């Protein structure tokens, strides 16, 4: 790296906080990232949504300078992740997916350690970490290894924040965490975002998209779409109906054999049916399906047109690679 470049380029307000272009990473014969491009704006809460094996962790490791890409480029805060690594490291906060604090140090010792590595102190940064750290401060003398999952997560977030980073990378902070703790964690992130921090967070839970300003859907190392959650949903190409019947298993089979069915999936207590005809009127389609199920002896089927959700969109994009925009 060239130290002059690294320190002499303050980030313009309109420059992207993260700019990734054509990123490729291979591990042996496995292509972990297959030409990934997107940007994150300053102050944005950006979500990277996708299942395991999608490339989320590899991408975050490249953005935090822990891994070199095979091709393409990645800039964080205007700095090149391949050449300006030391400058980037002092300005990013990173919370890896696996708990990686010192289990034999206490809560307070972990936090002091991370503060001192970055040349600061917990006292100096207390106002920033307080909303999170205060929740675990009663346990400040407990060994980090003996904390509950939710408390470990809050300590890890405190440690990632203690040097007042300009951008935060959180790799699957809510995986394996129950629904209540997940909600609380996202509330914390919303608070940090309101303070102006740029945050990139990955998750396999599609329902968390709504907590983000924009999201990228990622699968098998490729970006399926990048947009606001509403923008992603608006792009769903086919009419979609919610079907509720007492006999879900049989209704799935029946609907799949309907001549115009494009896909049928269970969603909670009901089913989502998408029709292969993109131009059919949803209300007319609902009556058509109701009549069909009725003829098949399904009692009192409830059928109504609905707006697609993020998960519908993810599945639609997975189904048909030709719909991939990038």
């Amino acid at each position, binding site marked *: 790296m060239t130290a002059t470049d690294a320190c002499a380029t303050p980030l313009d307000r309109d420059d992207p906080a993260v700019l990734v272009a054509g990123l490729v990473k291979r591990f042996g014969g496995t292509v972990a990232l297959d030409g990934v491009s997107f940007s994150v704006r300053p102050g944005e809460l950006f979500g990277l949504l*996708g*299942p*395991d*094996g999608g490339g989320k962790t590899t991408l975050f490791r490249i953005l935090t300078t822990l891994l070199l890409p095979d091709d393409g480029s990645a800039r964080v805060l205007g700095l090149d992740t391949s050449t300006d690594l030391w400058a980037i490291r002092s300005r990013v906060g990173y919370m890896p997916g696996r708990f990686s604090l010192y289990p034999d140090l206490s809560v307070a010792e972990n936090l002091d350690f991370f503060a001192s590595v970055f040349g600061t102190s917990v006292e100096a940064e207390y106002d920033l970490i307080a909303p999170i750290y205060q*929740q675990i401060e*009663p*346990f400040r003398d407990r060994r980090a290894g003996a904390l*509950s*999952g*939710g408390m470990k997560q809050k300590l890890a977030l405190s440690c990632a924040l203690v040097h007042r980073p300009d951008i935060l990378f959180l790799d699957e902070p809510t*995986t*394996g*965490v*129950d*629904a*209540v*703790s*997940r*909600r*609380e964690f996202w509330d914390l992130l919303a608070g940090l975002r309101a303070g102006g921090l740029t945050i990139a967070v990955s998750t*396999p*839970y*599609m*329902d968390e998209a709504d907590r983000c300003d924009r999201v990228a859907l990622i*699968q098998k190392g490729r970006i399926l779409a990048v947009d606001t959650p509403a923008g992603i949903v608006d792009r769903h190409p086919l009419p979609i109906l919610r079907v509720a019947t007492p006999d*879900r*298993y049989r209704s*799935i089979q029946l609907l799949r054999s309907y001549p115009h069915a494009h896909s049928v*999936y*269970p*969603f*909670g*207590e009901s089913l989502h049916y998408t029709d292969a005809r993109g131009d059919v009127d949803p209300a007319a389609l609902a009556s058509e399906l109701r009549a069909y199920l009725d003829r098949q002896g399904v009692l009192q089927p409830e059928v109504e047109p609905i707006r697609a959700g993020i*998960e519908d969109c*993810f*599945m639609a994009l*997975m*189904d048909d690679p030709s719909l991939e925009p990038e």
Partner: protein
Amino acid sequence: MNRPENVSGPAPPRELRLAQIQPAIEVRSLTRRFDDFTAVDAISFDVQAGEVFGFLGANGAGKTTAIRMLIGLLAPTSGEARVAGHDVRMEADRIRRRIGYMSQRFSLYEDLTARENIRLYAGIYGLSDAAIRERTETLLNRLRLDSHGDTLVRSLPLGWRQKLAFSVAMVHEPEIVFLDEPTGGVDPITRRQFWEMIYEAAQNGTTILVTTHYMDEAEYCDRVSIMVEGRIAALGTPAELKAEFGASTIEDVFVQLARPTAEIAAGMAAGSAGTPTSRTMPSG
């Protein structure tokens, strides 16, 4: 998938079967303490044969401890449980032969191929050589894994591994299958395909007890229990629970019930005990 050779003609309607057969799982005041800590606090419930039963709770609520008792890996401190008609305390090995178990990540040997994993488990469960051969090919075929039967499990995509793990848990045609967060991290289509495998098994009479952090999956279950602080705080069909708690989703019910837990934890830190949730439904 199960026992088709014994059944002549169509199976009776599912509701009828659920009502007629003795419970697959019967739990009465089941309790487990570790020193001063009561991980499972006198829980009682039944799971009917062929039912898909969602076993929910916050991290640390006691689900895993309860499941470990039900599959005979951990002795209860007090109370009783019968699984497939057998007492968990006295007849743990008979129970283990009649149940299947799949946990999120550790059910398969990654250094063995898909075919070897099926054969290994089938052998452990005492299937005959002929049955092992037949069952292995049937399962690989059903999973559309025929051409990947000799691939190391480590090299299979996660979704396939999880479907394979489920099949392996079903290889000895158990009456009851325990699934501990079976769908973590898989893509939404695979997640749904997995649930269709669950439905299919339930249609064939297998009882399913499943834990999950995906609250939409809770709504796929016939009935759901929600554990809070070692107790069953709510139990019913998804529709019943939503009506009882005035919630539009099971996630809302879950948050209403489990939210006080976080406050209790904070209260304990400050030195006060706090009371568990006031909304406790009689179970069963």
